[in-house]
């Protein structure tokens, strides 16, 4: 561990065990759109979607995985990966302090990788969490996504990615920028293995995440009203002095501009994913029993072919002669 990281991993591990994940308990919340007040359990029961106006409250990674996975059962992969501080970056506070504070909330990084089943189909999920440093993409996000893609490719498992990110993590400088290219390499590994990549864009998906793996899914869904943009509205207004409409960059506008395949209500997302995974499922692998049968039949066919060989070769030699029809001969040999 680099000496300039002043975080004790043991200390963090102990702390994590005693800290509850955020946003799952506590007191109620009012919907920012319509003002309806909800108790926390009530909101959780409705996948954190407002029952009166369908506003989608932010959903952090763990409850998101609970929501997507069959029976809410999933296994996290590579939770041990943590950010380093290669630039020894200090803005208004040192980067390690920001990391420590983010970890205190119970999160380990801005992405969680998990293996699970959706609609009975085994898959991997990579879920981002805006609550951890704005869901920003640093080296850990790039590395975890790369490992997830490798495993998905290796085991022919579809990869589901749920994004929620402000973009590259400033505190990791140009190394964070390079994660854009790294995640595109990961996407290319999936392509080589002919494994599906399904992207779900949650609010917000901006900057380097939208300009890399998030925009090259095989099928791309967006949650209602999610902001999806390379440059955020504030940056655009400052740079171009354009006045942007409220709808700018929102999921519905991105659908209209052909940038996403569908806007899907969170409550329907598990079924929607199950359906698309079902459609893309490859022909089932033969049962071990069936394979044994085929192997036995294959051996019998081979034996029969071997017996027929002298006759066969005679006829093949005569190919083109008066008796010559090598194609049908071979075919007979196989059936025989």
């Amino acid at each position, binding site marked *: 561990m680099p000496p300039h990281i002043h975080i004790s991993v043991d200390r963090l591990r102990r702390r994590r065990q005693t800290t509850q994940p955020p946003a799952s308990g506590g007191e109620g919340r009012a919907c920012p759109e319509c003002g309806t007040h909800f108790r926390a359990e009530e909101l959780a029961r409705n996948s954190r979607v407002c029952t009166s106006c369908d506003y989608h409250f932010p959903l952090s990674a763990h409850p998101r995985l609970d929501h997507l996975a069959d029976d809410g059962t999933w296994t996290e992969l590579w939770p041990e990966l943590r950010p380093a501080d290669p630039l020894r970056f200090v803005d208004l506070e040192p980067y390690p302090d920001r990391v420590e504070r983010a970890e205190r909330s119970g999160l380990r990084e801005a992405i969680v990788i998990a293996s699970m089943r959706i609609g009975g189909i085994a898959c991997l999920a990579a879920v981002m969490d805006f609550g951890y440093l704005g869901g920003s993409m640093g*080296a850990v996000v790039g590395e975890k996504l790369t490992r997830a893609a490798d495993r998905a490719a290796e085991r022919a498992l579809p990869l589901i990615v749920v994004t929620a990110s402000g973009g590259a993590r400033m505190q990791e400088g140009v*190394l964070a920028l390079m994660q854009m290219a790294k995640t595109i390499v990961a996407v290319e590994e999936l392509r080589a293995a002919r494994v599906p990549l399904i992207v779900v864009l949650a609010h917000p998906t901006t900057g380097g995440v939208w300009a890399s793996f998030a925009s090259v899914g095989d099928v791309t869904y967006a949650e209602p009203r999610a902001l999806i943009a390379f440059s955020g509205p504030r940056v655009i207004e400052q740079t171009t002095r354009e006045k942007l409409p409220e709808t700018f960059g929102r999921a519905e506008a991105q659908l209209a501009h052909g940038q996403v395949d569908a806007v899907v209500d969170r409550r329907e997302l598990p079924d929607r994913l199950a359906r698309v995974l079902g459609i893309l499922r490859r022909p089932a692998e033969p049962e071990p029993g069936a394979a044994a049968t085929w192997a036995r039949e294959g051996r019998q066919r081979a034996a029969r072919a071997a017996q027929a060989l002298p006759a066969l070769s005679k006829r093949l030699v005569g190919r083109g002669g008066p008796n010559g029809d090598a194609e049908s001969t071979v075919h007979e040999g196989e059936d025989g």
Partner: protein
Amino acid sequence: MSDRRGFLGLRGGRAADEADEPDVWRVIQLARHQDRPYPLDYIERLMPEFEEIHGDRLFSDDPALVAGIGRYHDRPVAVIGHQKGRDTRERTARNFGMAGPEGYRKAMRLMDLADKLDMDLVTLIDTPGAYPGASAEERGQGGAIARSMQRMLRLTVPSVAVVIGEGSSGGALGIGVADRVVMLENTTYSVISPEGGAAILWRDAARSRDAAAAFRPTAASCYRWGIVDAVVPEPPEGAHHDYDEAARLLDGYLERTLRELRRQPPDQRRRLRRERFRRIGAYRGAPTEDGSAPAVGSGDGRSPGGE
């Protein structure tokens, strides 16, 4: 052409370390100097026969990104570069070198052509970032950058990306996923411009010097972090003092590197290109299951994981 000076970081050259770190703010000013040579200045000197192509065949042409084919050391070569514009009128016309989706789509058109006709690809990076505009967003700015990177990873021909000025954000990386990535001596490569970083992290755009010092976007730092493979020297007072000499120094590196890359089989080149980008990043944690990766960071011994 022979090298006047050794290239930093190339075989036999000296490795840059922190002691060599020049004044960051001075480098940023040099990288953005209004008289700095732009892609068309290098092209004019390195490949007098050059044919620019225009348009993405979908919507329009993007003057912020020039693309074309030229004759270079007796071979055809494809060139893409951010072109900032010299005076106010040209700068406005070229959007200050901030490319939109049409620019990246034109770039991909040229990459297709490079593959088809077996031409080496050279990209020249000099941009404050991709264009932030509502219309660019509507036409898929994010997807265009992502697909341009994807297209570069699939290239069958050799590719070299050269940061010739300011390399900021995804707008730079969109044409930066090459077999070799190098920076000229007085250039920067960063996740964001110092002003943008100051506005976000210090909530005060005026603190751009602090942001610059924190990002350390210089060639020496980027070399140390394993982001670039070499640093190409400039004329003593900077590239804007002597375009001919700046072009000659770049030529020395470029010609040799393309020749080296051409000796690799295309499949190997593509594999190494992917590996080059996938190992970038410093993190802490346990090794991978097969125990192959180091516990801290990655890279190739140049210690991007801190020291």
